[in-house]
């Protein structure tokens, strides 16, 4: 009995900084944003309780549904694309090639640029009317377009931008690969396993906790995607709403259009969706994620 209590105290000691941060800095703002989602709030005057009006308005708003469509398009192509890329390159770069450190750095460079102001110009320089993509197409005799600013293609250029910034997932995969004990490979090599069967029976299973992490995080990040569109379209979500991501609309509503109540309502709908999806992934993880000795 005393033993248990001591363990609990120890655990809470480890958790103490997080508990202070959560209750002191994080929970309050979260609860107030939940409260604000039931109000009409323009940031400048006091919020006014309006019940479910924001939610009702939202579901009747064509911009809202446009942003849902755009975001889903991004998620369905962007997340698998980026994860696949990151894992592929990580596996490639995990080999002991000469000068590999330099390559790893080079591959991380796009991610270093992050939300830099230069990205918008760069993307026009690549995917604009006189961009280098069109220069290549011209060699093939194809007349290009301004991909970055055409409603039919703009979203895809942003997906490419996101996939191109695959560095963070790559590093996490690399770190995960390195944590796999080398003995496992040695032992299976003694058993006569080939490279591919090692990959299947050791690498992938041992990497599943990290894959789970990347999957959940990439999903959250993708549904919250904001920066690429904010920078490239200068916050408009244009042309004609074709890159109006969910969070971009939320930001416009909250800060540019003085409708923070509506923005908060949007945020909590997103939380609801993300929590459901994450719960499903965690539930399914029992069947495919391998923890050493089935850690709790």
């Amino acid at each position, binding site marked *: 009995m005393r033993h248990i209590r001591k363990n609990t105290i120890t655990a809470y000691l480890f958790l103490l900084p997080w508990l*202070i941060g959560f*209750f*002191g*800095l994080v*929970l*309050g*703002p979260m*609860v*107030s944003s939940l*409260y604000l989602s039931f109000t009409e709030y*323009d*940031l*400048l*005057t*006091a*919020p*006014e309780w309006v019940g479910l009006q924001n939610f009702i308005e939202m579901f009747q708003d064509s911009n809202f549904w446009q942003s849902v469509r755009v975001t889903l398009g991004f998620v369905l192509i962007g997340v698998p694309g980026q994860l696949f890329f990151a894992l592929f390159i990580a596996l490639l770069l995990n080999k002991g090639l000469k000068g590999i450190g330099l390559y790893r750095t080079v591959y991380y460079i796009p991610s270093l640029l992050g939300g830099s*102001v230069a990205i*918008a*110009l760069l993307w*026009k320089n690549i995917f*604009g*009317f006189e961009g280098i993509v069109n220069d290549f197409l011209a060699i093939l005799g194809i007349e290009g*377009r*301004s991909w*970055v*600013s*055409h*409603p039919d293609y703009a979203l895809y250029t942003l997906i490419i931008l996101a996939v191109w910034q695959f560095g963070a997932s790559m590093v996490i995969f690399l770190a995960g690969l390195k944590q796999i004990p080398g003995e496992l490979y040695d032992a299976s090599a003694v058993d006569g396993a080939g490279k591919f069967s090692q990959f299947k029976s050791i690498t992938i299973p041992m990497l599943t906790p990290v894959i789970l992490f990347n999957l959940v995080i990439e999903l959250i990040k993708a549904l919250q995607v904001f920066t690429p569109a904010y920078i490239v379209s*200068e916050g*408009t979500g*244009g*042309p*004609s*709403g074709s890159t109006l991501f969910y969070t971009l609309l939320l930001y*416009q509503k909250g*800060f*540019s*259009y*003085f409708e*923070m109540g509506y923005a908060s309502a949007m945020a909590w709908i997103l939380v609801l969706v993300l929590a459901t999806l994450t719960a499903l992934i965690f539930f399914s993880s029992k069947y495919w994620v391998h923890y050493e000795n089935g850690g709790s």
Partner: protein
Amino acid sequence: MQIKNRGLIFSFLGVFLLSACGGEENADSESEEQDQSSDADQIELRVAWWGGQERHDQTLEMIELYEEKNPDVTIEAEYSGFDGYFDQLSTQFAAGNAPDIIQYGGNLNDFVSRDVVLPLDDYVGEELDLSNHDEAMVEAGTFDDQFYGVTLGTNAWGVLINETLFEEANVSLPGEEWTWDDFDQTAAELTEALDGVYGTEYFDHNGFGIFVDQRGKILHEDGELGINQEDVEAWFSHWEAIRDHGGVVLPEIQAASSTTPEQSMIVQGEVAMQLIPSNLYGAHNNATEDDLAFHIHPYNEEGRHGVSLRPSQFMAGYSETEHPQEVAEFLDFMVNDPEATEILGSNRGVPVNAEVRANLIESASEEDKVMYEYVDWVSSTSDSPYVPNLPGYNETEALFQEMSESIAFDQISIEEGAAEYWQSLQEIVENNTED
């Protein structure tokens, strides 16, 4: 529900932290101590603006001068680029922590209507002298018969012309009084003659205001829209025609361009004509080696150009400031003091004070002279009333752009686009004027 300090709501919800470490009391007593330790009569004013390097340097110099002349006032300068400026400002308002003096753009009306801007009527004629200011610009800072903000610069829209490209295309420069038909024809000829360059950009929201005036209408007045759906349709059809004749740049090129002078289509050599406000003439000129000229906007058939003087930026006070009188004094200094205005020059447009203008024009650069002359000319030829921006400025402008793009990209018809714009416009205006 009257809550004076809006921050209180959040503090209440963040009560865990405050009770946990009692930080609030500490912070307060600390800052009080600081106040007492410094000179007791010292007044601190926080001044916020956005801009580029030139404006920062000039404004800082002006502030230094002000502090020299007013030793009892310390100015805390809070300046940044344009990115995020208004997001930061709104957050500060929400927490009741906004600067005492704030630079606004065309969205001043949206802040006035939400009671965060200091009414200046009590100080006009005393601390704040407006007697030499253009009437139209005083009116621009006036809402519901209260004066709220001094205009830092006067502007007028006009057409920027790339003379180098005109010459290359062998197209004659437009005459003094050109009509929309001349414009249409010139644009088409330019596109025809030049490889990869189009005659003109599409004029968008800013051009629409001028167009409405040319139709003899007033965009809005006292919260009532003065236009109808037909005016919107007429605008889109008008441009559809110019587009059909070949003069207008591809919508995807326009969509990729940016409002910054350096990345504008005319600087990038994509169009030969573009609608710009007069204070940006110099910035465009500096960004290219081509010869650019500033020209009057096309007239309608009755010989009306529809251009009116417009404010570039405002300087205004925070309604909760503790030193409203000093705020008024500072504003007065910024727009009336001969030395201060000389330092500030015309970075924010043509100064509103007639005396200041006369003083500055002598030493003005070639580019600035063009701007001064144009503003003077508009001022003497225009009887178009000053129309403030639509309420919900950001939203109405974004909506207009979205509809324009949808039409230009053939995603919807002109009728549908005009109808959708018209309906949403009414909702936005209603949302932003109820009070």
